[in-house]
C-alpha cells in the first residue's frame, strides 16, 4: 500500500498533446478513478504511473520515492489490461505464477500463493486450463489474480470491464471492489463509464482533452460539478443560461427567458462563479431535482415525450422556449400523456451555478 503523487505531469507525443498538468495525490488504500470520454488521456496517465511512458514534464512519486523514470518492472505494480493480456501459451496456474517466478520465490511458496489467489477469484479448479478454454469473465479474473498475487503496492486497471457483457460487468465490478476493500490495495481505475466510476470510487478525476476538469468524491462530482462539461458528462442535467436579475446574500435570481425565472442559492463551500447583476450565468438542474406539484420556482409546461423505465417516469417538458428533462420516481402516480400540461417546482438547493 503506497500513495501515488503526480506532480504537474504532462505528456506530449511529438507535438501532439497527450495530457497536461495533471496533479493528483492518491492516498494509501484509496480507490481512485480516472473518468472521461475517449481520447481524453486516461490511459496515457495510467501508463506513466505504470512506467510504460515517461512524462515529458513533471514528476511521479510512490510514497516519497521519485519513480518518474523507473523501469516498469521495478515498480511493484499490478496491472490489469483492457484485453486482459494473458499469456496464451501458459495455463491459468502458470499465468498467475509468472510474477512470483520473476521474484524467484520457492516452488512451494509459489504453489501456495497461486492457489490462494485462485480461491480469491473463485477459480480454484481451473489451474490447468488453457487460457483459450476460459470465458471472458474468467479470463478477467485470471488477469486480476495475476496482478494481485504479487502483492503490488499499487493496482492499476485500464477499463477492465469494457470487454464483458452487461450482466458480467456488474458481477465483476462488485468482485473487483470486494477484493480491493479486502486487500486494501491502493487502486487506480480507468473507465469511461460513469456508473462504474460512481459506484466504485473513493475519488474520481474527470478529464477532457488531456486536461483535468475536477477531482472529488462521487457526491462532489455529481452534486457540485465544477463546470459545464462535468455537469453534462456525469449523469443527466438540464443546462440553462440566463441573466442574473437580483442577488441577496447567497440567494440569486436568474431570468432564463421571459417565461422561465429561476431562483437558487450559491454554495459557499464549492468553487462558485463570481456573479453580478446583469451578467450571464450558467446553471444546472438535475432531472430528479424537479418535482411535480406546487413549490418554489414554480413552472408550467407541456409534456413532449414520456418514457417509463419502471423505477421512474421521465418526461421532456417544454417550458417557455426551453425543454427540461424531468424524472419522477414511480410511486404509483398517474402517468401523464404527451400534450398534457404539468406543474413543476424546483427547490432552491436543486439549482446549481456552474463555471464555464
Amino acid at each position, binding site marked *: 500500500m503506497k500513495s501515488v503523487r503526480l506532480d504537474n505531469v504532462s505528456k506530449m507525443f511529438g507535438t501532439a498533446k497527450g495530457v497536461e498538468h495533471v496533479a493528483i495525490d492518491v492516498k494509501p488504500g484509496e480507490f481512485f478513478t480516472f473518468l472521461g470520454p475517449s481520447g481524453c488521456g486516461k490511459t496515457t496517465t495510467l501508463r506513466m504511473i505504470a512506467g510504460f511512458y515517461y512524462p515529458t514534464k513533471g514528476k511521479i512519486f510512490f510514497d516519497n520515492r521519485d519513480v518518474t*523514470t523507473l523501469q516498469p518492472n521495478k515498480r511493484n505494480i499490478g496491472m490489469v489490461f483492457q484485453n486482459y493480456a494473458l499469456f*496464451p*501459451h501458459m495455463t491459468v496456474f502458470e499465468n498467475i505464477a509468472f510474477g512470483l517466478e520473476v521474484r524467484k520465490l520457492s516452488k512451494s511458496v509459489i504453489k501456495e500463493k497461486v492457489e490462494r489467489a485462485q480461491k480469491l477469484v473463485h477459480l480454484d479448479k481451473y489451474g490447468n486450463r488453457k487460457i483459450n478454454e476460459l470465458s471472458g469473465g474468467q479470463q478477467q479474473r485470471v488477469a486480476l489474480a495475476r496482478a494481485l498475487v*504479487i502483492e503490488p503496492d499499487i493496482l*492499476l486497471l485500464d477499463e477492465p470491464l469494457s470487454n464483458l457483457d452487461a450482466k458480467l460487468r456488474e458481477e465483476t465490478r462488485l468482485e473487483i471492489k470486494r477484493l480491493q476493500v479486502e486487500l486494501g490495495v491502493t487502486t487506480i481505475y480507468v473507465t469511461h463509464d460513469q456508473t462504474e466510476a460512481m459506484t466504485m470510487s473513493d475519488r474520481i478525476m474527470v478529464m477532457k482533452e488531456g486536461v483535468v476538469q475536477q477531482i472529488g468524491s462521487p457526491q462532489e462530482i455529481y452534486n457540485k460539478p465544477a463546470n459545464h462539461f462535468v455537469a453534462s458528462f456525469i449523469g443527466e442535467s438540464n443546462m440553462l443560461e440566463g441573466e442574473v436579475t437580483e442577488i441577496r446574500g447567497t440567494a440569486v435570481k436568474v431570468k432564463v427567458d421571459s417565461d422561465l425565472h429561476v431562483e437558487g442559492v450559491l454554495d459557499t463551500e464549492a468553487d462558485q462563479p463570481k456573479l453580478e447583476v446583469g451578467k450571464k450565468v450558467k446553471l444546472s438542474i438535475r432531472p430528479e431535482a424537479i418535482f411535480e406539484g406546487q413549490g418554489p420556482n414554480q413552472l408550467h409546461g407541456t409534456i413532449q415525450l414520456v418514457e417509463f423505465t419502471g423505477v421512474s417516469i421521465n418526461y421532456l417538458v417544454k417550458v417557455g422556449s426551453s425543454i427540461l428533462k424531468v424524472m419522477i420516481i414511480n410511486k404509483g402516480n398517474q402517468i401523464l400523456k404527451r400534450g398534457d400540461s404539468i406543474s413543476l417546482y424546483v427547490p432552491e438547493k436543486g439549482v446549481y451555478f456552474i463555471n464555464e
Partner: protein
Amino acid sequence: MNTNQTASQQESRWSRLTQSKYFIYILISPLFLVLLAYVIYPFYQTFIQSVVGTEGAGIGNYKRFFSLESTANLEALWTSIYISVISVITCAIVGVTMAFLIERYEFPGRKILSILVLVPMALPPLVGVLSFTFLYGESGIIPRSLQALFNLESVPFSLKGITGVIVVHTFTMYTYFYLTASAAIKGLDPSLEEAATSLGSGRIRIWVKVILPMLTPAMVASSLLVFMIAMASYTAPLMFGVERTMTMQIYLSRTNGNLDMAATQSTILSIVSISFLIMMRWYQGRRNFQNQSKGISVHRTELRTPFMKYLSMFLSFIGVIILMLPILVLVLISFSVDGEWTIQIIPPAYTLDHYIALFTDERTWRPIWNSLQMSFVATIGNILFGVAAAYAMIRTRFKGKALLDILIMIPWALPGTVVAVNLIAAFSEPSVFSFNQVLIGTFWILPLAYFVRHLPLIFRSTSAALMQMDQSVEEAARSLGANWWYTFRRVVVPMAFSGILAGTLLAMVQGLGEFVASILIYSTSTMPLSVAIFQKMYAFQFGTACAYGVLQILLIIFVLFISQKLTNGKAGAVI
C-alpha cells in the same frame, strides 16, 4: 550507505542511457552492421571491381557491355528479359487457370489436384530441372517412348534451348500465380458475379468487367515476382545449354577469368532485380485489401453434362500425371544401376545400393553431412538476425525502418549468382568483416552465402507472428516485474515460436538444396549436396544423383508439412 548511493547513481546513469531516445540506435546498430558487412559491402566491392578494372578506371566495362561490336552481353540481357517475360505470361495462364478451376468448379479429382498443384514447390531448383531432362530431354523417357510407340526415325520432340528453359520455368513458377490468384478468388464476393449475371451480363463480359479487374493487384504482384525470379534463374539455362542469359554470362566470365566483366554483369543484373523489388514493395504498399470480405464461402459450380464430367476427369488425370511425373521419375532412376541406362526407354536394371550408400558409404554421405552442417550454421545466424530484426521492426520505433526493411529484402531479390560474385569480390582478401581472414576456400563462405540468401525467411515469418501478438502481453509481463530479457525469453519467443520455427525449417531446407551460389564458391573439401548431384550427373551416375534428389524432396515435403501444421495452413505467408 555509500555503496548504496553509488549503486543508485550507476543505476540512474544506466537508466538515463536506456531512456534516451537514441538508445534504440545502439540496439539496432548490430543489425545494420551485419547488413553492411555481408550485403552492402560485398555489393560495393563488386561495383568497385567493375569500375576499377585491370584495364584502367572508369566506365569502360559498362561501355563494353553495351557496345554494339560484340553483342554477346546485350544478347544475354535481351534473352534474359525475353525468357522472363514469356515465363510471366505462361505462368500467369497456367496459374490463374488452375486457380479458377480448382476454386470455382467441382469435378471428380478436384481434391487431389488441389493438393498436387503445389508439388512443384517441393522440387529444389536443380532436381526439378534434372527430372525434366530425364523426362522430356533429347534422350528423355517420354520422347523415346513416343518414338518407340509410333516407330519413328527420330524422337518426335524434345525439350531444349530456350523452350526448355521456359517450360521448366512455367512448371516451377506457376505456383506463385496460383497461390495469389486462389487467395484472391477466395476473397472475391460471388454475389458480385451473381449481381452482374442478374443484370444480364454474359460470361465473357463478367470476366472482362468484373473478375479480371478484381484480380489485377494479385496478378501484378505475382508478375513482378516471377519476372524477378526468372531473371535470376541459373539452373535451367545451365542444364539446357542456353549460354546467352545474364546469369550464364556471369558464370562464363568468371570461369574465363574475366572478373571485371563478371562484376559489371553482376552489377547490371542487380540493378534490374533491385528495381523490380522496389517496384513490388511500392505496389504492395499502395494496394488495398478491401476485397477480403469474410464469411462468404465460394460456391463451386458443378459440372452437369456427363461429357463434361468425363472430360474433366480425364484432364485432371493428365494434370495429376504431369505433376507427379518429375518426382516419380526421380524415384525410378534413383533405383537404377549407374551406367546401365543408355539407349533403353527406361533404366533396365535396378538396385537399392544408392540408398544404402547414402548412409553407409563415407564418400557418398560426405556431401549430405557438409550440407547439413553448413545449412545449420547459416540457419543459426538467420534465427539470431531474423528474430532480432523482426522484433526491432515490429516493436520499436526508429528512423531508418524503411531502409532496414529494404536492405533485408535485397538479398532475396539478388540472383544467387550475384550473391556469390559479391561474396567473392568481398572476401577473397582479408577484411574487417571477415575478421581479417580470407573466407573464399574455407568452410565459412558457403554458410555465409546461405545466410545472406535466406536472410528474409525467418525475418518474415517472425514478423508475421509478432504482428498478431498484442503488445500489451509484453507490458503485462513487465508490470509483473519481469525485465526485458526475461519477458523476451518467457513471453515473446514462446508466443512467436511457430513463426520462428516455420521460417527456420524453410531456411534449413533451402540451405540443403542451394545450388546457384554454391556452384560458384564451393571448395572440394566442403562440397554441398546439390553440387554433388550436379557432378554425379556429369559422371553419368544418375542413380546416385537421383537418390540425393529424392532425399532432398523428402526433407522438403516433411518441412512443408510441419509448417502447414504450425501455421494452421497459413504457410503461404512464409513463402
